[in-house]
């Protein structure tokens, strides 16, 4: 079980090899990629920033929770930091288990909890040069409570 931050490109095949286990009949992975659009705006790039020490402890806690909740053999999550462009891999989650059900469920749990809890931030760069820290608006259409 490991949660890792890295500022270099992710290699899904190598990451999955790290979970190799002959007891595993199912290996599920999730690739979170940079989209070229966000709520109608064209996105040219993203910056990811993390609070390393706490991101790692919270990420490890999520992996430990997944192991308690689901019958899995191994799990890992790796998140990028730095400057990414559309198509780049931003986050990778891999889970192996004896049968497929727990692997799918644990993979979903890990990515959902990582997005909700781990101190990682995303700044979008839009066509035309504007930027925005996602989820941090305090006025305008993206502020909490302002949406439909």
């Amino acid at each position, binding site marked *: 079980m490991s949660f890792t931050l890295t500022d270099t490109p992710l290699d899904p095949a190598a990451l999955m090899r790290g979970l190799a286990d002959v007891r595993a009949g199912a290996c599920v992975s999730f690739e979170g990629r940079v989209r070229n659009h966000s709520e109608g705006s064209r996105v040219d790039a993203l910056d990811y920033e993390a609070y390393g020490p706490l991101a790692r402890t919270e990420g490890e806690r999520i992996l430990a929770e997944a192991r308690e909740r689901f019958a899995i053999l191994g799990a890992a999550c790796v998140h990028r930091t730095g400057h990414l462009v559309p198509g780049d891999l931003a986050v990778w989650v891999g889970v192996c288990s004896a049968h497929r059900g727990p692997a799918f469920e644990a993979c979903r749990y890990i990515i959902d909890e990582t997005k909700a809890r781990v101190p990682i931030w995303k700044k979008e760069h839009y066509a035309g040069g504007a930027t925005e820290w996602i989820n941090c608006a*305090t006025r305008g259409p993206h502020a909490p409570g302002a949406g439909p």
Partner: protein
Amino acid sequence: MKTVRIQYFALLREQRGVSEESVTTGAGSPGELYRDLRKLHRFTLPQDRLRVAINEAFGSWDAELRDGDTLVFIPPVAGG
């Protein structure tokens, strides 16, 4: 008075203009300190949108501030 180290990330880092600083303060808790700093530096995020980390672990806004603590005010996260 006590001196604490503050690390800033993301929107707060940009609004403060530095990644970290030492602050000598009479505030008794992280919540009081954030209220003071928000006024001073015009941080846009209200306290109820943030979490606080004390010495690299999630902490409480009304914890007692101790000399030498390292604090991080954590803006809404957006990994993935």
